């Protein structure tokens, strides 16, 4: 599913953010990525959702070398990946419903066809009442749940999440973890970057630890 071999990343002429990172995510696996702030977790996730190219090394996603993926093929690969951003990246001018439905809209699906699915998912993450609300009026936790719902609505093969429970209370965090585990049970490969060691201990999944750009299996 995902393979990294001796991957290095630096921004411009700056220091290397990731150093010789190598790991393999098998299809259907569930992994946590832990590490202190500034360790390079977000940069690693950006490499995995094809927003960055590695400075060196090899990244293969869905058995494709990312350096060989053409601009035209990029959207097709990204449609197979769901991403939860640390800063949510919801579109303020769209309602919660429209934000969550965005990946389906981009696929060209008609609203009548996905309305029930989106509403079900919003209910599941506890946002059914906020379907028509706009992100500026949502709390941090609500935004986070909307971002998660958007990432999983198209049932991606690979889910990448950057601190997906950073803004929610422990009860909701556990519930969201169960959502990720349920998705994983249905076949989605899940890769979660988090500080929350309590969440990691509940997950019963393999754990990678990233520190100063060096990745180690915990």
């Amino acid at each position, binding site marked *: 599913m995902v393979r990294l071999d001796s991957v290095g990343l630096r921004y411009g002429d700056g220091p290397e953010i990731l150093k010789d990172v190598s790991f393999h995510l098998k299809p259907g696996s569930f992994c946590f990525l832990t590490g202190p702030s500034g360790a390079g977790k977000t940069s690693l996730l950006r490499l995995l959702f094809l927003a960055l190219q590695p400075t060196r090394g090899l990244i293969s996603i869905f058995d494709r070398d990312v350096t060989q993926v053409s601009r035209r093929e990029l959207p097709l690969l*990204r449609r197979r990946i769901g991403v939860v951003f640390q800063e949510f990246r919801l579109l303020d001018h769209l309602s919660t*419903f429209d934000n969550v439905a*965005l990946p389906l809209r981009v696929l060209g699906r008609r609203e009548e066809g996905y309305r029930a699915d989106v509403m079900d998912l919003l209910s599941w993450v506890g946002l059914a009442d906020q379907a028509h609300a706009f992100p500026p009026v949502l709390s941090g936790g609500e935004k986070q749940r909307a971002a998660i719902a958007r990432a999983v609505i198209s049932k991606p093969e690979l889910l990448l999440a950057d601190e997906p429970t950073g803004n929610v209370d422990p009860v909701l965090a556990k519930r969201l973890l169960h959502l990720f585990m349920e998705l994983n049970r249905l076949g989605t490969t899940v890769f979660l970057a988090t500080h929350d060691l309590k969440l990691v201990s509940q997950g019963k999944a393999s754990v990678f630890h990233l520190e100063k750009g060096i990745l180690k299996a915990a």
Partner: protein
Amino acid sequence: MTNSHSEFRQGHIIPPEAAPLKALTVTMTVMCYLACLAIGALILINRAVDSWTSGLSREITVQVRLLQDSDIDKELANAKALLQTTRGILDVEVLDRSAGAKLLEPWLGPNNLDDLPIPRLIRVTIDEKAPPDFVALEKDLKKSVKGSSLDTHRRWEAELTRMAGALSTLSYAILVLICISTIAMVIFATRTVLDANRHVVDVLHLVGAKDGYIARQIDSRFLKTGLMAGLFGAVLGILTFFLLGLTGTAGGGGFADASRGLLFAPPAIAAWSYGALLSVPLIATLICLITSRVALIRMLGNVL
């Protein structure tokens, strides 16, 4: 909760209020207005040249100067007889003395022309399809008519055509410059819209939107802008010619007559004028749409 359709009206993926295209609409309207003026000028120049050259090429003039030992009336009669028997000439009209005097009036004034040996003119209408041999005619006139000379108007015609050609080229150059400026403005506006919506574009890319999909969300606004600006510009242009046509008197020449000729000509000719002026909105829309689409695809292609 009700799931009525009205409750789920989809929002615009690219918000129209971010980087509105009002400035582009205004500048494009001005460009379309200028394009209409240039097109109007082009039509008028071409029409005037057609009318002048057809008038000039239908006629030639024979001038008979008064020489000391000649009888002018006899020479005129000789010239008329010669011209009437020449093949390719349809009509011969000897103009009276006042016609020649009138031509000199701007230089010499209306008085004191009686004592001057004013040349006499003969207007000759020729068959345009089978004109006479001008070289042979000139030779015959020199031989049989004292003080005669032949003016075929070719020099005037060539100069008028050259001047009209220069004005036409200038109008075309103005139209090309207007198109280039419009393209540059649309590219600039496209970049502004893209920059103002960079976060939206990033999210769309990350959820797997293709560049064409993103471009479609934006270029409909450029379609509307091009069409609106083109229509405003064309209406203003037509209104300008209409108002110019209302000023001045009929037959008084100048802009007023030219504008009337543009808009109030016989239907077949006027339709051509209106068609050319109303092509401006169509061309503006196409320029706006194609330029923004190409610019968007190129700009989006530079974003990973």
